[in-house]
């Protein structure tokens, strides 16, 4: 009996090794392990054995059964692998074939993309993102920023005024408040300080307007990102630190920045912030006009007159402000050579982003 069982196992192992198809394997399984198969035949015979003998043979029978099942499992895997390889070879697809009738994905405007990136940087540094009117009073756009009524920036050739609301630009010495299309996002500085008080860390991205004829480098509509920081002991060094953080974020850690004097009525000192040209790394190229530097970050320490307009004591608090040219950063980032593309609505341009 025991010998018969061992023989059965040997027989199965030999046969199973030669099986190549799933069908043959199934047949072999029925032959050996099926209800009427060889193993159950032997098991039935076991019933006639004496108790002790039966126990012994039973153990062997179980071993044999397990061994056969294990061998079967292995064979099954082998066969299935072989048959999958055959199928796979037949299922070749040309992966370079284009997708037909695919819905194109849409795009966000490049200014939106760069703006959102900067918003994330600044919010991670604890800045608020604020927003303000585009049609602004000449008070917030000019007067509050230490730009008196006689200042050239207020000339109608530089600023869009609203009909019937030309204010100080229309009549010299007029007390009437004029309405203008804001010429810079700095118009929100005093609003932000009045609304949120000190300490303040905020950015204001947005659309601005200048009354100037358009060409490849000038647009009457463009985008800026204003930043305002006010608190106790805020210094020029802090402004430099924030500029450095922005440069690192935009063009990689260690991007050099360079500050030099520049005059704006609402800051003192005022600075012209330049970034080392990201393209040539300062060697000089077409993008930076051979200078190695890109002018991108104007700013300065907030003028005490501006703080006073916001009801902030300039003896106690100080701050800095900056107004990045968002449009300019976008043009630099993508190498756009004509500013007019940005508000053109031309899908041949917009679909590239």
């Amino acid at each position, binding site marked *: 009996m025991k010998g018969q069982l061992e023989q059965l196992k040997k027989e199965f192992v030999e046969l199973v090794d030669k099986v190549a198809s799933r069908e043959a394997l199934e047949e072999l399984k029925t032959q050996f392990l099926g209800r009427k198969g060889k193993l159950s035949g032997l098991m039935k015979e076991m019933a006639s054995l004496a108790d002790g003998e039966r126990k012994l043979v039973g153990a062997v029978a179980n071993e044999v059964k397990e061994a056969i099942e294990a061998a079967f499992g292995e064979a099954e895997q082998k066969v299935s692998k072989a048959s999958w390889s055959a199928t796979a070879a037949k299922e070749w697809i040309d992966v370079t074939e284009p997708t037909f009738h695919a819905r194109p994905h849409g795009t966000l405007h490049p200014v939106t993309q760069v703006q959102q990136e900067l918003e994330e940087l600044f919010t991670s540094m604890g800045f608020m993102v*604020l927003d303000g*009117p585009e*049609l602004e*009073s000449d008070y917030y756009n000019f007067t509050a920023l230490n730009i008196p009524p006689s200042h050239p920036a207020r000339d109608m*050739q530089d600023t869009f005024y609203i009909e019937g609301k030309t204010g100080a630009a229309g009549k010299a010495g007029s007390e009437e408040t004029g*309405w203008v299309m804001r010429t810079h996002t700095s118009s929100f500085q005093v609003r932000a300080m009045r609304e949120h008080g000190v300490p303040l860390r905020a950015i204001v991205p947005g659309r601005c307007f200048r009354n100037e004829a358009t060409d490849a480098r000038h647009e009457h*509509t463009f985008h800026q990102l204003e930043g305002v920081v006010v608190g106790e002991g805020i210094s020029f060094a802090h402004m430099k630190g924030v500029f450095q953080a922005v440069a690192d974020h935009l063009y990689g850690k260690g991007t050099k920045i360079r500050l030099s004097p520049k005059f704006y009525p609402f800051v*003192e000192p005022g600075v012209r912030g330049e970034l080392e040209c990201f393209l040539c790394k300062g060697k000089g190229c077409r993008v930076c006009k051979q200078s190695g530097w890109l002018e991108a970050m104007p700013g300065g320490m907030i003028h005490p007159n501006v703080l006073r307009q916001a009801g902030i004591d300039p003896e106690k608090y100080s701050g800095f402000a900056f107004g990045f040219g968002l449009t300019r950063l976008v043009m630099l980032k993508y190498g756009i050579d004509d500013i007019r593309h940005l508000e053109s*609505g*031309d899908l041949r341009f917009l679909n590239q982003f």
Partner: protein
Amino acid sequence: MLISKKWLQEFVATPKSLTDTELAQKITLSTVEVESMKDQAAALEQIVVGMIKSVSAHPSADKLRICHVDVGTRKTQIVCGGTNVTSGMKVAVALPGAWVKWHGEGELVEIKKTKLRGEDSEGMICSSNEIGLSQTEGDHEIRDLGNVDAKAGTPLATVLGLDDVIFDIEHKSLTNRPDLMGHYGMAREVAALTKSKLKSYEPKKIPVGKGIGLSVKVEDEEACPRYMAVAMDGIVVGASPEWIKRRLEACGVRSINNVVDVTNYVMLELGQPMHAFDADILGDKIAVRAAYPKEKITTLAEKTYQLDLSMLLITDGQKPMAIAGVMGGEGSGVSEKTTRIIFESANFNPVSVRKTSTKLALRSESSARFEKSLDPNLCELALRRAVELMSELNPGARVASKVIDEYPRPPKSITVSLTADLVNERLGTEIPAKDVEDILTRLGFEVRMKKEVFAVTIPSWRATKDVSIVEDVVEEIARIWGYDQIESSLPSFSIKPPVQDPVRDFARRVRKTMSLGLGATEVYRYAFVSPEMLQTLGFDPGDHLKLANPLAEDRPYLCQSLVPNLFDTVIINHRAFPVVSVFEIDRVFFGKLKGDEDGQGGMLPAQPYHFGIAYSAQGDESPIVELRRQVETTLHIAGFDVTFREMEEPGAWMHPSRAAEILVNGKKHGVLAEARPDVAQALGIDRRVAIAELNLSMLAALGRAPSVFSPIPPYPDAKRDIAFTVAERTPAEGLEKAVRKASALLVEYDLFDIYRGKGIEEGQKSMAAHITFRSLEKTLEAQEVDEEMRKIRQMLEKEFGATMRS
């Protein structure tokens, strides 16, 4: 503005080790932007004096000649197109390796040995504008160097004395630095930057002269705070010596005659504009007064201007002789016949000069300087210098009057107090007190120290505009110390949660869904619209805010809706793109609604953000269907419940039976419509267009409905399908509501097909839907579900006249 290095060096000796590039960089980093730098000699390298030995015709070109030229080291053959070349002429020859501007235009080109129409040519005989000696267009004549005493082969730079370096200072960066509008002021700055010594500027005092009883009457001392004048006679008008011409030319000013050149020379040196009148025309009584309304003057540029009350004139007591600070009048200036002159050296109000020059569209070197607030103390220095120079050029000239100085109210000097600690606190630095003092002293500030406190007196040339408060003085210290010497640090702040901006958050979600989810492209457009566009779309321009000063051909009205922009975007793109799917989020402007406060007690117009979408696809006769999907999806993702209602009174641009109101939480927040085909056609769009517009600010204010978790159903759902026909004009939304009401166990009604056409009666449509039933208490039995379906069918037949299809 152009600054000559040689001129600077008359007043300051810069360290020998300092290169020109380094000097330019120092000025840029601490003072004003040096835009470019031109080394005159470098530009003329390989250009020499040549002597033409012979000229002969070119065998195969009528317009070319063959010249044999002595260039010192050798004789060479050059093919030349100039018409005025003759044998024996001295000319400028660009040898191979030189860089010239071909015909005076475009980029510089390198000269190479070449063949022209088969003849060897080893260089180029140059016209003035080809080697940058003349900016005059069309100046193609070969430059005749006949009057030059130099051998063939001498470098042209040596011959012309062009060994200067010219720095070009960016004009805008001088806005607040009137003191730098002349070489002496720039030299003062350079001395401070390089720690070099500045020579003092002390022209001879003017002796009192006799002969002309000059008098000056200033009627408006605000517009003319100071007026100085002096007369000279014995003047012989003629050409200036070369060294003056060279200086003027280096700074871009043309030499006119010795008298005018003196005034310009002084202006370039000190920054103080001057004027010279012919004393025999002007007379001896000068009156400075406002122009009469409509008074006219013809300037020395021979253009006539009509003036008004706001403009200041220099007159002979009656007739205008010059527009103060802007330009002299025709006839009163210096001519060849002039023998007696009056020099004017005055100070005019910057705002008045700027307004006059802007109104007249007349700008000059003079107005550009006065506009920036000049130091009234310059008047005297300039007048002394002019008399000194004139006497030098014209040894026979002598002062013929006393020196007039109308200066009723000299400004008081300003003194501010500060400490080194304050400076360092503002800058985040540790600059020692002695350096603070040193920097200010070098810049000409007078510094007195009492205990820790500096009393700083601002010099007159900085006090007109730029420096008046402590912060201004801090800037002076910072920029000379060097912005690059200030080490970056980041401020520390207490933690304060930022204010949320629901509009911005909502706009972000909308942008993401529209572009990444729905395949639409975001556009940015102008805030302005043309009256034609408004009228075509049936909007009333009279309702709209309008610019007082729009760009000439541009659009004068402020958008009150994004619809015109969206149509415009379709117009631009529909020919190139079979599918135009775009959206815009921007502010619009309502003159009649109130928005933010204006800072002076009033209110600005309301300027909410709108969200607009346009969809148009070739062959799609019902683009409103796709557009509705976009609106629905975007608002669902943003957390809103959205429904649509047929519009009772569609707008003028809308298709009368394809227009809907967009309802959020049951209230109207926007519109969705197809364009009337005739409107689209009028706009040049030859296919169907659908447009939607929502008030994004209003929607954002609603806030999102909170999302609440529903438990996973413990029992399986039962699903059935239903198909039926109903009348064409049965709104799907009302029908769905009724179906949902008909069965308490219904949880989902998913309409998956609407069919019209073959097999369906005219005026009818077939609708098919998947319906899902669910109980939270048990597994539903088939009979129970059948019963629910029966109720639904019965309701549809009864209430909607539906016919079941299966």
